[in-house]
């Protein structure tokens, strides 16, 4: 299906058009929003199409897979594309009011589209080396949007982010080279078929190489022990853009872990990597939430929670080591990713509004937002309860699915850790609620106009309510997507066709 190029091509062309419109903020806003909204409609249609007609593939330049570069859209890729473009559209709208006029005139919107381009590229590609190319495009875009404004803090933190990511990218290329040497292909479907048939000696080599890729993806996902860059760099991202960055970028790492460690590496003994992931996941959630408890800045608290939530998603991937619960656990991860992207993005957007209302980022000086802006308080309450896993919102169901899988496989320790983490998350959200929304307001009126910002934010909050109350179709979708990647026969057949080894 040739239309698979669209999620990459549209942002690419939009970048060029926006760059030509430099200096004309109104035109740039219109083009950026129209492009993002149009692409959102397209990816939702694609999800529906793939759900009904099975996996779609496309090879570029007439070289058939596994030699040519393949684009593959299975359910998982389509779900991620929908989340990326949905949040991307909301954030584009939100930045109309939060990014300074001077930055809007110049390169803010082109850079944000570069970010969308890279993220979509990662989701739609069916080739390990192309995944690296997508990562690089995404990183260049993220350096750009993190630097918008170029304050001292932004420059300092972006430099760190940039240094640690350049190391990660190098490891990724090395990993690609070593996978190619040991297995002889980089196409994901071909890799899945070939690794399953490896002898014990080759399999051990591939397991060793997979550990290198585990480091790369864990770094990107912000998993223990490679998360130290995250809580420093996310708070400096401009409000609004941080919604997209916090929602999507670490989830690209989680997606890569799912794609590569569940679908691709199937050599005898591949469970070792998954067991390592399971141990890391426990530490990730607990240390993330403990880090959040001792912070006194809204965005820092939320950034630490990104880490602890990544722990839950990675836990589902780790549970896949146990073949009897693999599909249920991976389905839990996929549903958790859907829930988390929506809720985390909306919390960052609400945090941005609360800062505008109270005029400060410091938790102890905010106070009284409930009186100044009751609507914002309502939005926060729903998102925070959802994040902590209270019924009836999506957070409760996503945790329930994961915990049931964990208990079914007898992994009691990690289940206990995740329950403790959930309680501590509630404490942390209650802290934000007490200091930001209760208390006496330090000012009589909101510090800056905020009402327009509530429209895009409310859209995301509505999505978490829908994911909670009408979960049936989404759970079914997550289950089917998990089935596709834990039993890769259909994926391999769709990509390689007659040329299966």
């Amino acid at each position, binding site marked *: 299906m040739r239309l698979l190029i669209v999620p990459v091509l549209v942002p690419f062309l939009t970048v060029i058009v926006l760059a030509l419109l430099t200096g004309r903020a109104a035109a740039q806003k219109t083009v950026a929003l129209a492009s993002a909204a149009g692409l959102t409609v397209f990816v939702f249609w694609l999800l529906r199409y793939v759900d009904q007609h099975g996996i779609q593939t496309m090879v570029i330049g007439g070289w058939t897979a596994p030699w040519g570069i393949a684009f593959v859209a299975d359910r998982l890729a389509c779900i991620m594309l929908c989340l990326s473009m949905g949040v991307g559209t909301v954030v584009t709208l939100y930045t109309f009011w939060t990014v300074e006029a001077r930055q809007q005139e110049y390169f803010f919107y082109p850079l944000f589209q570069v970010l969308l381009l890279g993220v979509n590229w990662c989701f739609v590609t069916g080739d390990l*080396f192309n995944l690296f*190319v997508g990562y*690089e495009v995404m*990183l*260049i875009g993220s*350096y750009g949007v993190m*630097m918008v404004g*170029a304050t*001292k*803090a932004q*420059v*300092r933190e972006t*430099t*760190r982010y*940039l*240094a640690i990511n*350049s*190391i990660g*990218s*190098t490891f990724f*290329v*090395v990993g*690609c*080279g*070593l996978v*190619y*040497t040991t297995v002889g292909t*980089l196409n994901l479907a071909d890799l899945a078929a070939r690794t399953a048939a490896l002898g014990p000696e080759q399999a051990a080599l591939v397991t060793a190489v997979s550990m290198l890729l585990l480091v790369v993806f864990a770094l990107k996902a912000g998993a223990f022990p490679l998360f130290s860059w995250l809580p420093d760099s996310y708070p400096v991202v401009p409000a609004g853009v941080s919604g997209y960055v916090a929602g999507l970028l670490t989830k690209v790492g989680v997606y890569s872990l799912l794609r590569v460690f569940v679908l691709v590496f199937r050599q005898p003994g591949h469970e070792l990597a998954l067991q390592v992931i399971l141990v890391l996941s426990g530490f990730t959630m607990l240390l993330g939430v403990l880090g959040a408890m001792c912070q006194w800045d809204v965005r820092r608290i939320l950034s630490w929670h990104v880490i602890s939530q990544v722990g839950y998603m990675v836990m589902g991937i780790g549970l896949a080591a146990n073949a009897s619960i693999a599909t249920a656990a991976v389905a839990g991860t996929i549903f958790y990713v859907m829930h988390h992207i929506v809720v985390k993005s909306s919390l960052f957007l609400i945090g941005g509004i609360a800062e505008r209302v109270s005029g400060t980022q410091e938790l102890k000086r905010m106070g009284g937002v409930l009186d100044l802006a009751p609507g914002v308080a309502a939005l926060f309450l729903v998102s925070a309860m959802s994040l902590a896993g209270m019924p009836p919102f999506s957070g409760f169901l996503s945790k329930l699915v994961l915990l049931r899988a964990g208990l079914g496989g007898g992994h009691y320790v990690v289940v206990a850790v995740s329950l403790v983490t959930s309680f501590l998350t509630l404490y942390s959200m209650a802290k934000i609620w007490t200091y930001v929304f209760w208390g006496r307001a330090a000012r009589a009126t909101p510090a800056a106009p905020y009402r327009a910002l509530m429209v895009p934010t409310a859209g995301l909050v509505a999505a978490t309510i829908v994911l909670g109350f009408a979960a049936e179709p989404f759970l079914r979708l997550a289950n089917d997507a998990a089935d596709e990647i834990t039993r890769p026969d259909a994926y391999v057949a769709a990509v390689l066709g007659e040329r299966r080894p």
Partner: protein
Amino acid sequence: MEFVMAAVVGAMFAAGTYMILRRSLIWIVMGFGMYSNATNLLLIVCGGYAPQWQAPFVGAAAPATPLMDPLPPDIILTAIVISFAVGALLLTLSYCVYLDYGTDDPEELV
């Protein structure tokens, strides 16, 4: 041959790590360059090499000698292009930081 290359690649990664861990931005950029060159050399070794291998052009007749695998050089080319782009971005960035703040040590920006 492989042993020599492995030693060279290892030495270059060590040097690159040392450079990236420095505080100055320009060292980080150069360290990144060192890293990407080390990676490209590693990929050449991964692709394998033997003097009797032919260029991978297949005519009507089946080739008499083994052919060179074209994919590793292909990957290296792409990796060079990407590291070139990222390197250019990093250099521009560090120059802009220097113009704005008069320092190339990000830790001084507090």
